[in-house]
């Protein structure tokens, strides 16, 4: 994993730290409400059988988001 990879490119079981969140303000705000912002830890749980969306865990929240949106989240390995 390169120092800054996109959340959409990870593999099941990867644990990462959020480096930055891009995209439009609503997306950034909604992700932040779930506790996903710079400095927070994420576990990548997996990809849906059809290849999209992905499932991640932030704290005790399991969240599913599409790869298009996950691509705006840049992460670094823990």
């Amino acid at each position, binding site marked *: 994993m390169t120092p800054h990879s996109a959340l959409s490119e990870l593999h099941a079981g990867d644990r990462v730290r959020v480096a930055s969140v891009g995209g439009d303000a609503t997306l950034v705000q*909604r992700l932040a409400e779930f506790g996903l912002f*710079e400095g927070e830890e994420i576990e990548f749980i997996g990809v849906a*059988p059809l290849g999209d969306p992905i499932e991640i865990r932030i704290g005790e929240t399991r969240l599913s988001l599409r790869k298009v949106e996950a691509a705006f989240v840049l992460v670094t390995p823990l």
Partner: protein
Amino acid sequence: MTTTSPVAAPAITVALVGNPNAGKSTIFNALTGLHQHVGNYPGVTVEMKKGYFKHADRRVDVIDLPGTYSLAARSPDEMVAVDLLLGRRPEESTPDVIVAVVDASNLDRHLYLTTQLMELGKPVVLAVNMIDVAVGHGTKIDFGAIARETGLTVVPVQANRGVGLDRLRQAIVDAATLGVLPSPPLLPVGLEQEATTILQGMNGEVPPVLARRLLLDVGGAIEQSLVVLHGQPLLDRLVAARGRLAAAGTPVSSLEAKARYGWIRAVTAKALTRPVTRITTWTDSLDRYLTHRVWGTLFFLLVMFVVFQAIFVVAEPLMIAIDTGTKHLCDAVSSTMPSGPLRSLLTDGVLVGVGGVVKFLPQILILFAFIAILEDCGYMARAAYLMDRLMSRCGLSGKSFIPLLSSVACAVPGIMATRVIENRRDRLATILVAPLMSCSARLPVYGLLIAAFLTKDRPFWLPGLVLFGMYMIGFVTAPIVALLLRRTLRRGERAHFLMELPGYKRPSLRAVLRRVTDAGWAFVRRAGTLILMSMIVVWALLYFPHKDATGTKYEDRIEAREAIEKEAETLEKAGSPVPDELTAQLESSKSGHALRGEWKRASYLGQIGRWMEPVFTPLGWDWKIGMAAMASFPAREVIVGTLAIIYETDKDDEDRLQGSIRDDWATDSIRGPNAVPVALSVMVFFALCCQCASTLAVIRRETRSWLWPAFTFTYMTLLAYFAAMVVFQIGRHL
């Protein structure tokens, strides 16, 4: 009511607020019992449940707000809850107390909304639910510490077992009496300053908390409504203020979350003792299989099969029973009442109409039982997760899958099932395409025409293939229309697919029963009247005028004829010769079938049908088919009965009906050589047309607008007309 005190203490209003899946509804049901009803709000699709309870001689009115993760309202629908909490909905009394329901097993995220509620200037009671789950995860909770650190009244509850509810009731009454206001976490000073500046330009229209939301929620509901009032200058000021905040290192999109989560972490650090390494939960292990590429998919298909099969297999006998019951009632009324418009209205109009409404109930109740179970146990979100890719290709989301699949049985429960879709745009698109799915009421039409024209002397596989093709028309058209809708009608509204996958839990029987009865009532009460009305209109158009050219009532002629037939029959059975006079009468008068046919031809609908024949010609239809199709607009399944009347046969004898239609078409210069294209054209029309008053009534109910049922009706009728025309025109030239 106790009247011991001279002045009764005023009622308290309390609002229940929490994240989805926090167990809010369970607490609401446990607090209010059977004292509840649903409140609607003009212009939005939001429903809120209201109820009351009595505690220590005080009446407490409870409002259950829709589950939400944040007060950052993005649509007018979400804004209703915020306005209500702030006392900005004139029809609703301002809440005196807010109960924040949080999930103990995910306290950090649930407290996020609580910190926003603490800013509303109302006492907040924190109901900490699902303690057992948190304990199961190895977390120790110090409730005293939560109370100390947050400054709120904290009540541990286990709503599903009724634990802690009395303390909650007491805490609500105490909070209302004492009126202690919480001190919320501080947001960065820069934001407060910008909010104050914005407020100064608004001469007190909005409370300070909304001025902050106006700055924080880019493109949110408050910005949308205020920019309409104040125009570009306000937008310019907002952009400038947000720019200054971003330059200061606190961009509005994340400053709020960082400040709130900072405060929350400090609270939970003192109040919670978590295990050093996170325990693998039930949900973790179960999800490994249920979202697995192979096992997850197989399980999903199995669940869908069971749901679907139940709708067909369990509902079918009930629906037949309702039909039979309606018929018996009609017969009973017919035998006790004299013939005439009143009897006909009561039987063919009202009874058949009511039967037509009640008939949908078994499917609705069964589907909603499954939906309630799947949602309550947490699987619904997984189903949406698995199907999202497929549905997103046509501009919908994973949550549209179950409503669309249900519509294959019947669009009415399918459209009601779209309530599980939180996103307004996705929900509307799903509602608008659901009626295209081939529902079970279309089957009789397919069955009749396939049997009449595509079975005899044809390859054995043809009937099955045609039937499959009819279903495929819906499956293919619905996604295409959904895509077109996304590209045109609802363009511009951006929707992000962020869906929580809640922890699995055992569904509660009470919650399931409550959902099922709510759905049933909602359908009967709000859609039922509309369905009934439209059925009566078509009845009247088919009934009047009920006299022939000489002024004799058709009903009298039919009765007279049937009396003669009966007399002749009795005589024949007894072995006595039938008098010539009677035989002559039998020969000179028309049969009951023929009379009914003549009557319907002369009816207003028959007249309209004949007048509109040029419209039907491009489809290969004559006025008879056209009239039958028009008579089927309230409910497509009546087509078989109408065809039986027009083609003068008994509707219970389908073989004869098929024969009559075949013979009638064979004598015609257009339909004779083109019987198959005409049959296909009729079937395609029925596949695509929205001939269902119930569906339109439910669309009206769910969208709270006449626009969308009108739109659905128009686009589907046009689509059906042109598709039927193409099928016939191509077919006749092949």
